[in-house]
């Protein structure tokens, strides 16, 4: 099987080369040009093929019309080759867990490049800036923006901006100046280059690359905060990179003499314009998308298409206005997530998510393969030991220094400080990638005499970071983590206690509130609730946005009400005999009413101010937390083994152990949601039980409920037995009573106010809900 795919891969490449070779060979005056884009060379071959046959007499039954299809054929062929490469890479899982997929793809790129070079004697297919920036990068970034965990992103926005802006400027300046200093010192020999060119080179090599970061961090599970820092930084630093690149490019064109304070000030202003302008463009397009999806009820089948087109347009618009295109498409994705997920039909949402992943994954694969192929081109290689080694050294060292410095400053202001391990991983994870290569390939050879040197250096830097740092990242993290974790053999009691403590810790954090109540944040939430949601969401979507808690609470109340009414109707003694009647089948009620109200409330990408089940699974502890498998069980007696095994399998995991939420290749994991749902139902059920028993003097079941005993079997007893009650109420019988009773009072008040069943139903106000939104009760 493996052999077959390899053969197929090689065969496809050979086919591509030979076909081109043959075709070119038959053409007079091959005009290859410098770096022809894959397949887009059709200009001088376009419809000429058709003309060959017209001078022959008679009808041609079959003709070979290569030129007719050359351009699209080559494109499609290359996409196929990239896909097959990915398949080859993923054949062996143990290999991919050691070497990240991106490194393997580059390797395959080298092999393919070698084949092509051998066949063509030149590199006909390389990664050109146009193709990269216009056709390959946008979907990767759109995917990043659309799946961005907003709440996490915005709550760490300050730190991310510091790293993105100040960190990138620091990197650019230090690398550029460092290299310049070394050049002055003569370490690089004799090259035709100046300070400004060094600074330009520094600015393009300084930027952390989003594509590479995701690719490597996919394998290494780090905690959410760390991940969002590196990832956010890699996305937002584009604003800085674009500005620096353009500014220094302009300076080089002007020549050193023309630079004065005015120009520098203009440069600084342009940073703000580019960054904020780009974000603004993105936000405008996000508004457009949300408005559009609001009206697409009748064309649900093509709804998903709008997202992609408008996302791409936001990218191109920003590019057109010379603003930061990456920032634009990122903010477009970030801002529109919530509204389009609410507005669109569930199937459209699934489609968008899946297709987004397909495009992003595909692009990433193509990018890495071509990064490999582009290297096999002797025309491009200029070797200067000093330059290359110094660049590698500087970017590595200065990244560490920069991160540690900035973190030290930031930790003074952060509630949750970043630890040493986090900083190490963040510094080490500053990978450079295709964006740097794309930028360097855009340089004008006439202005930059040493362009090839820079290209070679960039390629080496990319390979170094992606491959070496990618491979060693996981062992590094494991090593750092293992030093802290104490792996010991735990007894049953200890395991249970461990988990109890985890839950307790999480509960205390919730009670004391991790994020204090922030005036600005509350204002924003209110504004967003009142105006934005009204404007951008469909009315039906708005209604169903309510908290699960609220809805469930309503169901709770309804059942409690019916229970009480039932009891009052029959008289308490008769009621006691028939308790099972008013029993609540939580599973059924939950799923039935719930699923029709909110089809996708379980979806991961609800916005920042909602608390759907899955968004609560946030890991807030900022330590590097690898998902380490529990200690292997030693063989004791079979009973022991069973008990440990049971614990390992079935203990509810605390929130700390839930993984980070963004992944290039996986959509959400389901296990967490089921677990949370289960816990939630049980809590609600136990609260209701306590209420029932408190109200009616019915002691709750002595037996523990299992999955197979859905119904409650309270034993008969006299009324008002207080000693029984105190045993089972978590917070005092009066407390439980008042918890549900006051809500019940409100409910009854509402019942008396509503005159007829057909009047428009607004849900009862709740004293327990997180906010006093009125809720329509379905089927009431």
């Amino acid at each position, binding site marked *: 099987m493996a052999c077959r795919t390899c053969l197929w891969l090689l065969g496809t490449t050979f086919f591509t080369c030979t076909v081109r070779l043959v075709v070119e060979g038959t053409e007079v005056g091959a005009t290859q040009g410098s770096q022809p884009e894959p397949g887009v060379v059709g200009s001088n071959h376009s419809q000429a093929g058709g003309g060959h046959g017209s001078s022959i007499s008679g009808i041609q039954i079959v003709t070979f019309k290569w030129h007719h299809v050359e351009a699209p054929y080559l494109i499609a062929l290359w996409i196929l080759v990239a896909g097959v490469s990915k398949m080859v890479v993923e054949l062996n899982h143990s290999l991919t867990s050691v070497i990240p997929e991106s490194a393997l793809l580059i390797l395959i790129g080298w092999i393919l490049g070698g084949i092509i070079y051998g066949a063509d004697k030149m590199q006909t297919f390389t990664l050109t800036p146009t193709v990269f920036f216009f056709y390959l990068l946008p979907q990767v970034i759109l995917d990043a923006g659309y799946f961005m965990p907003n709440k996490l992103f915005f709550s760490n926005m300050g730190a991310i901006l510091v790293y993105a802006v100040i960190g990138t400027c620091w990197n650019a300046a230090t690398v550029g100046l460092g290299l310049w200093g070394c050049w002055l010192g003569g370490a690089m020999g004799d090259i035709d280059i100046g300070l400004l060119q060094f600074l330009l080179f520094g600015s393009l090599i300084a930027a952390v690359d989003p594509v590479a970061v995701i690719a490597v961090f996919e394998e290494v599970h780090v905690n959410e905060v760390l991940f969002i820092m590196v990832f956010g930084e890699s996305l937002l630093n584009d604003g800085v990179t674009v500005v620096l690149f353009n500014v220094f490019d302009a300076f080089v064109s002007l020549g050193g003499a023309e630079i004065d304070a005015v120009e520098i000030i203009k440069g600084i202003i342009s940073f703000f314009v580019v960054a904020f302008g780009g974000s603004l463009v993105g936000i405008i397009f996000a508004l457009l998308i949300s408005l559009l999806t609001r009206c697409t009820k009748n064309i649900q089948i093509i709804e998903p298409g709008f997202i992609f087109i408008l996302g791409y347009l936001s990218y191109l618009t920003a590019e057109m206005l010379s603003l930061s295109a990456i920032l634009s498409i990122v903010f477009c994705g970030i801002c529109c997530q919530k509204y389009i997920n609410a507005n669109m039909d569930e199937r459209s949402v699934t489609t968008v998510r899946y297709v987004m992943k397909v495009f992003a994954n595909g692009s990433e694969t193509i990018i890495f393969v071509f990064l490999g192929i582009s290297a096999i081109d002797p025309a491009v290689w200029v070797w200067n030991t000093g330059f290359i080694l110094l660049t590698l050294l500087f970017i590595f060292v200065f990244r560490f220094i920069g991160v540690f410095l900035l973190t030290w400053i930031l930790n003074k202001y952060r509630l949750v400080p970043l630890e040493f391990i986090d900083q190490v991983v963040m510094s080490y994870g500053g990978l450079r990638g295709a964006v740097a290569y794309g930028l360097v390939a855009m340089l004008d050879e006439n202005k930059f005499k040493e362009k090839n040197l820079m290209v070679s250096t960039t390629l080496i830097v990319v390979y170094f970071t992606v491959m070496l740092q990618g491979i060693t990242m996981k062992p590094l993290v494991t090593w750092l983590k293992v030093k802290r974790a104490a792996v010991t053999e735990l007894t049953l009691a200890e395991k249970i206690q461990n988990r109890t403590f985890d839950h307790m810790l999480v509960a205390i954090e919730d009670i004391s509130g991790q994020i204090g109540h922030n005036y600005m944040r509350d204002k924003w939430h209110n504004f967003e609730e009142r105006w934005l949601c009204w404007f951008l969401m469909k009315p039906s979507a708005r209604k169903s946005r309510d908290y699960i808690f609220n809805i469930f609470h309503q169901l709770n109340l309804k059942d409690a009400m019916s229970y009480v009414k039932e009891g009052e109707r029959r008289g308490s003694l008769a009621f006691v005999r028939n308790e099972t009647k008013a029993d609540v089948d939580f599973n059924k009620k939950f799923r039935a009413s719930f699923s029709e109200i909110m089809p996708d409330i379980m979806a991961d990408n609800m916005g920042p101010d909602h608390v759907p089940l899955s968004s*609560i699974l946030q890991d807030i502890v900022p330590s590097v937390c690898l998902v380490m498998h529990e200690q292997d069980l030693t063989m004791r007696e079979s009973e022991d083994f069973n008990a440990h095994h049971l614990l390992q399998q079935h203990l509810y995991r605390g929130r700390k152990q839930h993984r980070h939420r963004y992944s290039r290749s996986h959509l959400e994991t389901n296990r967490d949601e089921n677990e949370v749902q289960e816990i939630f139902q049980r809590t609600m059920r136990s609260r209701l039980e306590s209420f029932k028993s408190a109200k009616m003097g019915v002691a709750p079941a002595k037996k523990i409920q299992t999955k197979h005993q859905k119904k409650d079997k309270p034993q008969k007893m006299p009324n008002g037995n207080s000693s029984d009650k105190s045993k089972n109420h978590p917070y005092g019988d009066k407390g439980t009573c008042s918890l549900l009773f006051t809500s019940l009072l409100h409910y009854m008040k509402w019942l008396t106010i509503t005159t007829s069943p057909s009047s428009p139903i607004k849900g009862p106000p709740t004293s327990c809900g997180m906010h006093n939104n009125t809720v329509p009760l379905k089927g009431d």
Partner: protein
Amino acid sequence: MGSTNSTLSKIPNVEELMQETGFTPAHIVRLYDRFEALDKEKTGHLRPQDFGAINRLAMNPIGDRIIGAFFSPGQETVDFHSFVRILAHFRPADKKRPKDPSMPEPVNSRTSKLKYPPLVFSLISVAFQLYDQDKDGKISRAELLQVLRSMLEMQVTEEQLESIADRTIQEADLDKDDAISFEEFRKSLEKVNIDHKMSIRFLR
């Protein structure tokens, strides 16, 4: 948080509270803000349903028990002082905290003023309290079963549950009275690094 001082002045006996618990003024202010946010009806006291309103707690298997730990038996409300005192247990380890959790903490030196018995304030006894709902000083098999039930998934059957509980008691119960006393509980936690677990960083 420019109004730290003004907020502090709103809280009665704040100096004493800070000394007892070891929280800094910034912490106290944060906790006070949180207390006020939870206390929707502005009564100055928290009741169980105020805790119940915290969504995330409903997602916690022992959430309701934790809420119960805030209310001592017979008490229906929690005022700010008790709220802070209980949270003081979960501060990270510092020089003030004794290494041996069964030694009384600085808080306990004032136990004469409080209604709570000395042991309640150590960290392990808070955990013990979670298990021991009827407050008889021992974790009986039934209580252990209840806790296990709430922490394990629904698919675990009755028999499996009982076997786990049996083995746990077997391991921890040293005096063979089929229940886990506080001493035995403490011993069973020797290997668990509690301080490391229980440090809530944001309270640093």
